[in-house]
């Protein structure tokens, strides 16, 4: 599959959405709305539930399932309120010592006058800040699109996985085409140059593993479940400070060996 075909696959409307994973993996899910400051943003889903026997905090960038739902959720592109909602729940997870499970599927953070007025940059920066200090494990899986800082805000995690056909990118291929090639039409070339496939991410050390989705949801669901379960067992023997240090060490080495 070419890089651009993967981009199309990752964006396919028929791909299982975040809520579908949550409904199948997390029992007694209680969704909690609002950012406790000024608003509610349905692009970010937050709540509590049981993963196996553990109580977990769940965060997701949700694109929606049909047109009205997608419109309501701004196609998974979160406003600052969405990131402030996730921030609140990260703090709650720290308070109650709950692991955090994140599902990432977004083309990127919302772009617009309102998002800028309400501090999109600051909202994402605060999520990164909070995540890098947490003493509970944060596990993220990119199930479709991992677009830029808007995706990273829910993926500055202890462990990150990608589904086989998911993508992870610093900028959309369209954006890269117009910036680098000065031609928005050169999306195919830009997709190739950006190196955004799960294989690329594994080679860069940006993710821990690639989860198969050959037969679709029936294969992807147990793969995500197993990855999360095994990782949580691994964190059971660690102290909060060790968990935090391990997360920093994970990002600390990314970008090359400079010694």
């Amino acid at each position, binding site marked *: 599959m070419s890089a651009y075909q993967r981009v199309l696959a990752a964006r396919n409307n028929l791909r299982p959405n975040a809520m579908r994973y949550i409904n199948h993996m997390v029992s007694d899910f209680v969704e909690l709305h609002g950012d406790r400051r000024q608003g509610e943003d349905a692009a970010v889903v937050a709540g509590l539930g049981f993963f196996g026997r553990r109580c977990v905090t769940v965060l997701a960038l949700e694109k929606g399932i049909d047109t009205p739902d997608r419109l309501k959720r701004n196609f998974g592109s979160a406003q600052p309120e969405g990131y402030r909602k996730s921030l609140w729940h990260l703090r709650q997870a720290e308070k109650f010592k709950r692991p955090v499970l994140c599902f990432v599927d977004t083309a990127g*953070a919302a772009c617009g*006058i309102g998002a*800028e007025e309400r*501090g999109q940059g*600051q909202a994402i920066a605060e999520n990164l800040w909070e995540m*890098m200090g947490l003493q509970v494990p944060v596990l993220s899986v990119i199930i479709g699109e991992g677009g830029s800082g808007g995706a990273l805000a829910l993926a500055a995690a202890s462990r990150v996985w990608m589904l086989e056909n998911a993508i992870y990118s610093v900028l959309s291929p369209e954006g890269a085409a117009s910036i680098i090639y000065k031609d928005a039409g050169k999306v195919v070339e830009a997709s190739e140059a950006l190196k955004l496939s799960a294989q690329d991410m594994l080679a*860069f050390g940006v993710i821990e593993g690639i989860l198969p989705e050959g037969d679709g949801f029936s294969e992807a669901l147990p793969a995500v479940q197993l990855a999360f379960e095994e990782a949580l067992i691994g964190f059971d023997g660690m102290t909060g400070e060790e968990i935090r240090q391990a997360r920093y060490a994970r*990002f600390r080495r*990314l970008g*090359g060996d400079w010694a």
Partner: protein
Amino acid sequence: MLEKSLFKNPNLRLEGMENAAAEERAPVFECPRCKMRQDLSSLAEGLFLCQRCGHHYKVGARQRLGMTLDEGSFREMSVRIASRDPLGFPGYQEKLEQARRQSGEREAVITGTGSILGQPCAFFAMEHQFMMGSMGAAVGEKLTRLFERARQRRLPVVGYVISGGARVQEGVLSLMQMAKVSGAVRLHADAGLLYIAVLCDATTGGVAASFAMQADVILAEPGALIGFAGPRVIEQTTRQKLPEGFQRAEFQLEQGFVGKIVRRQEQRELLGLLLRMHEGAGA
């Protein structure tokens, strides 16, 4: 200092600089705001401010060091760290060479230690002439080392931020620097140490969404563009005309994201004062 670097790097171009060929060693600058023409020496004396309207010219990282730190106090760190081309991105090598020629720097940020009005600090200044100060793995590594060193030595950090955001040519590895630097800033903060960021024109993208917005005190230069999405991207995406002054420092102050706007001639004084107010922090 500027004259020296202009002499060393004949390709060095500054904002508003006109074709200097006819005038040889005395390039003339035209203010982008009021069109007033000034020569280099009067500009350099005045901290690169327009004599008439006070416009803050964009200045390079070395000039920033010169106008902020106590003379002779700067000790540069991580001088060998420079960008590679991890993706084999088309045209990136040439872009890097061009950026090095144009800026006279090896990377888009200079880091080190020094003092301001006798107050020791760790210091960074980003270089807009180096690919718009964009952050790739080398910039991320240099900043991470700076905050780590500052933490070990119990030093506050003062940083001049100018950046177009994550560097596209290094793909997701650039994106990862946002988390990496955020982690280093957080560790520094948890040690009770001070971090002051001065946001300059322009601070956008992944940098505005990470360490630019994580400081204890956020200052900005007058008129600096500060935002997550750049104005052109917003206009293209939303097909809306942006209001006058949108995303400028004055707007960000109104919105509550910038603590204080400080003119260049007052920055050194204020930084020294703020450092003094936090003396002994993290002890």
